[in-house]
């Protein structure tokens, strides 16, 4: 057997296990240990990011509700109620109905009798008591005209207001500029929300970057040794990114849970007024919002620390 070199097989699976164990130990366990050790410097980042994410979650839910409100308003704004005179004849109403139905700007026309109008009013919050208060029916019959383009509502209003079948005092439900006012209000709210979150986001990211910078400074000897013994760059930088991710994940989890809790509490209150303020916000929507808040925290923490590492850690 002289001269024969026997090479031992190093099982690939065992090698993978060793590499995974070492990566876990030095990147994740080490990062978690150092994060707890440097909790003092991570605390400002943790609190500012939690605040940012919580407000983001709440603003997001509010935005979702406002978006739904806008959709409802847009739908309602494109529906024009043309009120009939009490003494309008069927022929006059039919004639107007034909004109509107054949107009290319109109999607559809529905005739609502006085009884149907009363029944509809009785189902609306706030109007129910008013509807029941009187023995006589105060609601007029109407043609409900769905306009294809919301900008044509004014044109249809002008077209029908002088028709013989239409009530001359209160011809339609058209309220010039109502929808535009709502839109302007929503845009204002949205812009203000984004500016507020941008400022808060800037603060949270800056604080996180500085906390990672402090962590790098406190472990400069360890970093220097890792670099000198030839640790790969990702191995040197990785633990700091993981530390940032821990900060982000904990902030995200806290903010997500609070967001979810507040949304659930609001839903549970179950008041009729709430459905007016936050239409469309359900348990599922709240859970999705909480998950998004968590993921945003994770991404924000990792991203901020990556920026810090690239800026403050020499290679």
């Amino acid at each position, binding site marked *: 057997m002289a001269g024969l070199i026997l090479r031992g097989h190093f099982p690939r699976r065992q090698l993978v296990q060793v590499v995974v164990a*070492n990566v876990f130990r030095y990147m994740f366990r080490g990062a978690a240990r150092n994060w707890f050790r440097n909790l003092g410097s991570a605390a400002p980042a943790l609190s500012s990011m939690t605040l940012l994410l919580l407000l983001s979650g709440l603003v997001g839910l509010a935005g979702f509700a406002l978006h739904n409100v806008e959709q409802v308003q847009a739908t309602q704004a494109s529906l024009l109620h043309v009120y009939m005179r009490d003494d309008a004849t069927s022929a006059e109403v039919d004639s107007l109905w034909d004109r509107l139905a054949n107009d290319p700007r109109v999607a559809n026309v529905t005739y609502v009798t006085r009884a149907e109008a009363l029944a509809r009013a009785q189902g609306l919050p706030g109007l129910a008591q008013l509807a029941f208060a009187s023995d006589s029916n105060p609601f007029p019959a109407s043609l409900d005209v769905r306009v294809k383009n919301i900008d044509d509502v004014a044109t249809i209003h002008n077209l029908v207001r002088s028709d013989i079948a239409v009530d001359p005092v209160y011809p339609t439900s058209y309220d010039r500029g109502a929808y535009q006012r709502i839109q302007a209000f929503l845009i204002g709210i949205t812009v203000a929300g984004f500016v507020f979150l941008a400022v808060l986001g800037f603060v949270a990211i800056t604080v996180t970057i500085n906390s990672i910078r402090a962590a790098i400074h406190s472990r400069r000897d360890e970093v220097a040794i890792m670099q000198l*013994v*030839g640790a790969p760059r990702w191995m040197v930088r990785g633990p700091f990114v993981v530390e940032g991710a821990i900060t982000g994940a904990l902030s995200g989890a806290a903010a997500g849970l609070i967001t979810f809790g507040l949304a659930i509490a609001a839903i549970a209150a179950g008041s009729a007024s709430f459905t007016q303020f936050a239409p469309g916000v359900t348990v599922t929507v709240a859970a999705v919002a909480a998950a998004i808040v968590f993921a945003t925290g994770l991404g924000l923490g990792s991203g901020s620390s990556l920026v810090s590492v690239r800026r403050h850690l020499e290679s």
Partner: protein
Amino acid sequence: MRPILEFEGVTRAYGPRLALDDVNLALEPGELAFLVGPSGAGKTTLLKLINREIRPTKGAVWVDGISAHNLKTARVSELRRRVGVVFQDFKLLPRLTAMENVAFALQVGDLRVSDQEASERALDALDAVGLGDRGGSFPHQLSGGQQQRIAVARAVVAQPPLLIADEPTGNLDLETSWEMMDLFADIAAFGTTVLIATHNVEIVRRLQRRVLTLVQGRLVRDQPAGRTGRMAWLASS
């Protein structure tokens, strides 16, 4: 035989000041050489160029066949795994034991090394520097000489072909310094090239190894091993 370390016309400038000026040298495997010169002569700059902490302004630096002068950042770790480094201030991690300090360097440099293998090799390295029985001690429980030995064990545990030491005896008494030099000589005898930057004239004279003398960034003298020459830089140090 291919040199382990080679400098070809290396110049390094910091602004208008030349820290190294057209330096040429080569070190063979197993060679032990001293790098001497007054403060500010460029010794540390030369060591930093070897380890690619900085790049030369001009010229080429070859370390075990790797071109350190134009090495991309992503490949620097590959170079550094071939160079062990010992510092004057030891740079041990205070929260880790002697054994853990050595094993840490081994594992972060090569993730394929298992815990068991790291422990065995760290123990071997500590044995080699005479501290096999102090593996469980923390740095603050050890003397300066012992800490420097641990630093040497950490530098050689991955068996790099080149070991550089920057004033390794600067914080040690003379007796301990001699022990350190014996250790470096042993390491060189096993085939590792050792380059030691030092101010310790007594050691340099008595060991009679190769001496590279830097003055104001220029390699003014390359004295082969076995000769005892005048050290011109002493006049200016």
